Each structure stands twice: as structure tokens, then as C-alpha cells.
């Protein structure tokens, strides 16, 4: 085991790799700090470029982007009351009131909490992932099929107001995964004689289309004209001892919350940050200052949403199930680099696993150093006008898409996917189930076939294996939950009406 740690650590601390982590973190912070750009958008655009860097450096750069973008969102949330990403919406509540009299103090608390949250979750990943992988080593085809369905159902259940729209999104993703030559029968499916489609639908053009290009179209639709050109002077860049003492228990508690939330497939930083904030407020001895600039109100959401980064990698690396949309992009990127996340990854490529874990730790350290050192520069980024930013996003979408396969048709496919995705998002269709469906589709289909061969064509195999049975039951319950909640609320409403009469 020790030789894997040493080998992984030696690779992470190479100057080139440290430089790409730093660069990735800078890109992530900049993207996160620009309202309208999301961490997923940054990840999708950067992913194709990382292929030029080669295996480990590319992955390490992505980890930098992953961490940096979550943190970056807090900068504009604190300074101009506009969250750079959805993850930082809760930070506005106390961050902005504090920044009106001491912006440097608010940013310093945010940086400290974000760094701690990220490091805590990276250590949680280091200690828990190998144990979970050992358990998952006993998984067979029925368990993998059930796990895929479970992952999809969790995302589907919470990502849209309409349960049908959520399920439809997942089916669209699964259906897209069937396009191309079937690996088992060798027959082409839904390729319509096109050589381009024979190879299947590529992840990256679809991801860039629905997350980055569609987001660019939203920016064009909104056309935010007011520019945040507030000249902000930061009075300090490091937290005070009093703030460290006051926020430490909150940061620790919310880091645990964020790590757990991140490890649950289908959740994300936004849920973690709101949950962290409400819990910090609930358990505070004096909660009267929450909403008026309480340091714990900044520390709680920031430590929770940054802790999601390590938590989300736990199911990703051990089971191949992404914890959120950001880790779904990571999964696609890892697979393209030849790293197939599964319990066997810890057996077959242990050094790669520890490179990812140590890389995440290094990325969080870089994020902290950049946060404390470069906050004065990052705080100016929100002033970049949209008329310059949006076309640049489009150019990067196209270049990023092309870089993957050097095929101009990928650019056209990305544009079509983005346009369709934009209208589907407007109609409340969530994109994470589509992406997860596309990623998990081949695993689900392959294991369904294998399980049916093993059971001689009986579906009972999925219910006679305990883990598979439990996962399928949870999947069904999570899909039914919105319907159950709807009927319970309806019944409650009727009871209240009757009581009022």
C-alpha cells in the first residue's frame, strides 16, 4: 500500500503537475466568480483541453477546476450579492451584509471555510473510498444493474418538478447511449447509415452543448446590462483569530454535512450549502445575527459546498456512480483517459486512485493559497461585460468540442444538442438525468444482459440478491416520492380545509 502512496504523491508533486493544478484552480475560480458561468460549464469546456496534457496532468487540472469553481462562486455572492454559481446562493445571506462594511473579512472567512471543507472531504475520500471499494468488490451483474438504476433514479427524482419529465430525461440519456454499434451483437442501432453515428454519441459534445452552449444562450436571453463595476477595497485578506474561533465548530459540522450530501448520488453543492446554513442557524446559541452578516452564516454554506467535491468522488471512484453533475463530467473525462471508475479500480489502478485523491488535496491547498493571495484580482472579475464574455464562451465551446476527436461534425452536434437542451431546460427538463443516462446506459444494458444470462432469463435474480433488491426498492421509492408527497400534501390540505370549516 505504502508504495502506491509514495508513487502517487511523487507524481502529484512534480512541478508540471503542480502547475496544471494551479492553472486549473485559477480557471475554476475565474469561471465560478463570473455570474452566469457554472462549475460544470468550466469543467466541460476544459475537459477536451486536458487530453492534450496527457493522463495524470489532465485529470489533475480537472480537479483544480472542480475545486476552484465551487469556491469562486462565493466571491461575487459576497461582494455584489450575485452568486457566481447556484452552490453559493446561501452565502449571499450573510456574506453580502458583512461585505458592506468589511468585504475583506467576509472573503477571508469564505476562503478559510472553503479550504477546510475541501480538505476535510478529500481526507474523507482517502479513508472511506478504499473500504467501500472492498465491499463493492463482491458486486455482480445484478448489483451493477441495480446500482445504475439507483443512481439514475435519485437524480431523476429530485431534478425536475414533474416526475415524468425527470424520468423522460433519464430515458432520453439511456436511449442516446444505444446509438451506434451494439458491442454484444455487433449490430448498428439508430445510426441511419451515418458513419459519425456508428461510433455512438460522444459525451463531450453533448455535455458542452447542454451545459455550456445552452448556458451561453441563457446569457444572451437575459442580457444583463447592469455591470458590477463597484470599486471594492479589501481591508484584509486573512481571517481574524476571533473569527477562526467563532466559526471552527460550524466549519467542522458543515464539512461533515457537505461530504455526506456529496456522497449521495444526485445531490450537489446547492443542497449541501442550504442544509449547512440551516443547520448552523438551528444549532447556534445566538442566531439573531444570521442574515445580518454573521461569520457563521458565511462559513457554513462555504464549508458545506466545498466538502461536496470529495464526497461526490466517493461513489464515483468506488462504484462508477457520479455524485452530481460535476462528477458526471469527471466520470466522462476519467473514462476517456482510460480510467474506468469501479471497485476494481482500487485493485487494478491503485496509483491512479491515489493520484486523484492527493490531487484533490493539492487542489484544495492551491485554492486556499490563491484565495488568500489573489483575492484582490479575482474580486474584479465580475465586471467583465457579457457582450465580450458570451462570444468567447461560444468560441471555447467549439474549440473544446473539436479538440476531442478533431472532427468538425462534433461542433455541429454540440450546437444542435445545446439548442435542443436550451429549449428543454426552458420547459423544466433537467439535464443531469440525460447526461447520467448517457454515461450509465452501457453499464446498465450490459449488466442486464449478463444477469439475465446468469439467471437463465429470470428477472427474480434482481430480487434474490439482497444488495440489488435493496437498491431497486430505494430506486422505486425515490421515483415514487414526489407522487407520494403530492398526495400527502393534497390530503393534508383537504384535512385543513375540513378543520377550518
Amino acid at each position, binding site marked *: 500500500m505504502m508504495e502506491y502512496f509514495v508513487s502517487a504523491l511523487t507524481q502529484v508533486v512534480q512541478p508540471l503537475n503542480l502547475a496544471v493544478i494551479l492553472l486549473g484552480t485559477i480557471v475554476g475560480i475565474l469561471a465560478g466568480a463570473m455570474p452566469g458561468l457554472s462549475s460544470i460549464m468550466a469543467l466541460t469546456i476544459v475537459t477536451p*483541453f486536458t487530453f*492534450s496534457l496527457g493522463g495524470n496532468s489532465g485529470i489533475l487540472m480537472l480537479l483544480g477546476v472542480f475545486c476552484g469553481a465551487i469556491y469562486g462562486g462565493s466571491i461575487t455572492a459576497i461582494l455584489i450579492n450575485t452568486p457566481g454559481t447556484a452552490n453559493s446562493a446561501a452565502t449571499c445571506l450573510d456574506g453580502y451584509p458583512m461585505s458592506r462594511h468589511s468585504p475583506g473579512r467576509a472573503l477571508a472567512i469564505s476562503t478559510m471555510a472553503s479550504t477546510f471543507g475541501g480538505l476535510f472531504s478529500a481526507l474523507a475520500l482517502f479513508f472511506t473510498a478504499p473500504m467501500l471499494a472492498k465491499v463493492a468488490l463482491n458486486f455482480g451483474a445484478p448489483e451493477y444493474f441495480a446500482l445504475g438504476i439507483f443512481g439514475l433514479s435519485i437524480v431523476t427524482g429530485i431534478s425536475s418538478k*414533474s416526475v*415524468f*419529465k425527470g*424520468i*423522460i430525461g433519464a*430515458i*432520453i440519456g*439511456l*436511449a442516446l447511449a*444505444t446509438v451506434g454499434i*451494439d458491442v*454484444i*451483437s455487433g*449490430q448498428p*442501432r*439508430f445510426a441511419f447509415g451515418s458513419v459519425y453515428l456508428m461510433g455512438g454519441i460522444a459525451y463531450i459534445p453533448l455535455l458542452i452543448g447542454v451545459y455550456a452552449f445552452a448556458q451561453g*444562450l441563457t446569457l*444572451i*436571453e*437575459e*442580457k444583463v*446590462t447592469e455591470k458590477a463595476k463597484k470599486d471594492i477595497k479589501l481591508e484584509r485578506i486573512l481571517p481574524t483569530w476571533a473569527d477562526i474561533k467563532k466559526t471552527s465548530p460550524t466549519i467542522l459540522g458543515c464539512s461533515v454535512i457537505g461530504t455526506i450530501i456529496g456522497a449521495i448520488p444526485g445531490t450537489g453543492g446547492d443542497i449541501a450549502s442550504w442544509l449547512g446554513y440551516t443547520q448552523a442557524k438551528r444549532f447556534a446559541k445566538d442566531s439573531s445575527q444570521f442574515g445580518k452578516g454573521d461569520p457563521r452564516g458565511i462559513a457554513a454554506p462555504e464549508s458545506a459546498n466545498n466538502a461536496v467535491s470529495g464526497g461526490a468522488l466517493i461513489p464515483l471512484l468506488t462504484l462508477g456512480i457520479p455524485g452530481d453533475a460535476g462528477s458526471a463530467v469527471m466520470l466522462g473525462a476519467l473514462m476517456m483517459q482510460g480510467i474506468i471508475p469501479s471497485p476494481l479500480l482500487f485493485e487494478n489502478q491503485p496509483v491512479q486512485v491515489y493520484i486523484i485523491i492527493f490531487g484533490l488535496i493539492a487542489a484544495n491547498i492551491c485554492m486556499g493559497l490563491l484565495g488568500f493571495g489573489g483575492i484582490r484580482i479575482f474580486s474584479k472579475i465580475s465586471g467583465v*461585460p*457579457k*457582450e*465580450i464574455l*458570451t*462570444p*468567447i464562451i*461560444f*468560441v471555447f465551446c*467549439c*474549440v473544446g468540442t*473539436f*479538440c476531442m476527436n*478533431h472532427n*468538425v461534425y462534433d*461542433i*455541429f452536434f454540440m*450546437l444542435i444538442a445545446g*439548442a435542443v437542451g*436550451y*429549449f*428543454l431546460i*426552458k*420547459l*423544466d*427538463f433537467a439535464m443531469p438525468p440525460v447526461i447520467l443516462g448517457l454515461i450509465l446506459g452501457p453499464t446498465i*444494458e450490459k449488466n*442486464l*444482459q449478463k444477469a*439475465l*444470462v446468469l*439467471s*437463465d*432469463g*429470470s*428477472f427474480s435474480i434482481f430480487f434474490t440478491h439482497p444488495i440489488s433488491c435493496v437498491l431497486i426498492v430505494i430506486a422505486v421509492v425515490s421515483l415514487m416520492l414526489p407522487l407520494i408527497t403530492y398526495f400527502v400534501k393534497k390530503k393534508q390540505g383537504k384535512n385543513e380545509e375540513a378543520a377550518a370549516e
Partner: protein
Amino acid sequence: MKKYNYIVAAVLLVVGIGMIVGTMDFPYHGLSDIGGGFWPKLLGGALLLCSIGLALETALKKQPDEVTIDFRSEGMKRVLIALGIMVVFSVLTYILGFFVGTFFMVISCAILLGERNKVKLLAIPVGVIVFIYVVFEMVLHTNLPAGILF
């Protein structure tokens, strides 16, 4: 939104039927050897049921019709123009290459978003193209699309 929900449900219904019909002639030897057609058929059936479910859910909803897509709004008009720009960009990229397409796209989008300063309108695409050329063509040795004419 009701109208659009019905349109989406109808389109998905057709897609679902298409998936089932399109894999009809795939070999199937029972559940122990399902072949390549079983899974798409299953998905097609699920899509069909969900599209009917979506249509029913929309019809039974008592809440007022929430308009989320208004093709007459200024914002949507800009989006449609942007999509038109991307179509022209695609054609230009395919025929004349990526840099010509990018020059047109960046200028058009900047004008669409309200930029009127001529110096900026010229400087932004030139700056972007130089950056892309240096990073991708010179440093990363990526040959961006040169177009069928060149």
C-alpha cells in the same frame, strides 16, 4: 407551458414508437439471450408510457398556464438570432475554416448583445483568434478545421 408539454409529449411518443419499430427485426432468443433489440424496445416502451403520462399530467394540472417560452419576447428573439448566427458560423467553418467562422460569430454576437464600439468590435475577435491560434495551433499542435476550400 401546456402547449409545449403536449408538443414534447407527441414528439416523444413518435420517438418511442420509432425505437420499438426500428428494432423489430433484431434477433431475440428469449430472456436468456435478449440480443441488441430488447433494451431499446424496453426504453421505447417506457418513453411511450412516460409521454402519455406527461400529457395526462399536463391535462390534469389545475394551475394556470405558465408561459416559459415566449417567442415574441426580446430575449427569445436574441436567442433565435444567435442560433441563426451559429448556423452561419457552422457553414463558414465547414467551407472557409474555423478562424473565418469565429471572426464572423464573435463580431455578430457582440453586436447582438449591444456592443457598438467599433474598436472593441474589431479587437475582440482578433484577440480571441490570436489567443486560440497561439494556444491551440502553436502550443498544443491542434489543427483546427481549415475548411473544405483550403
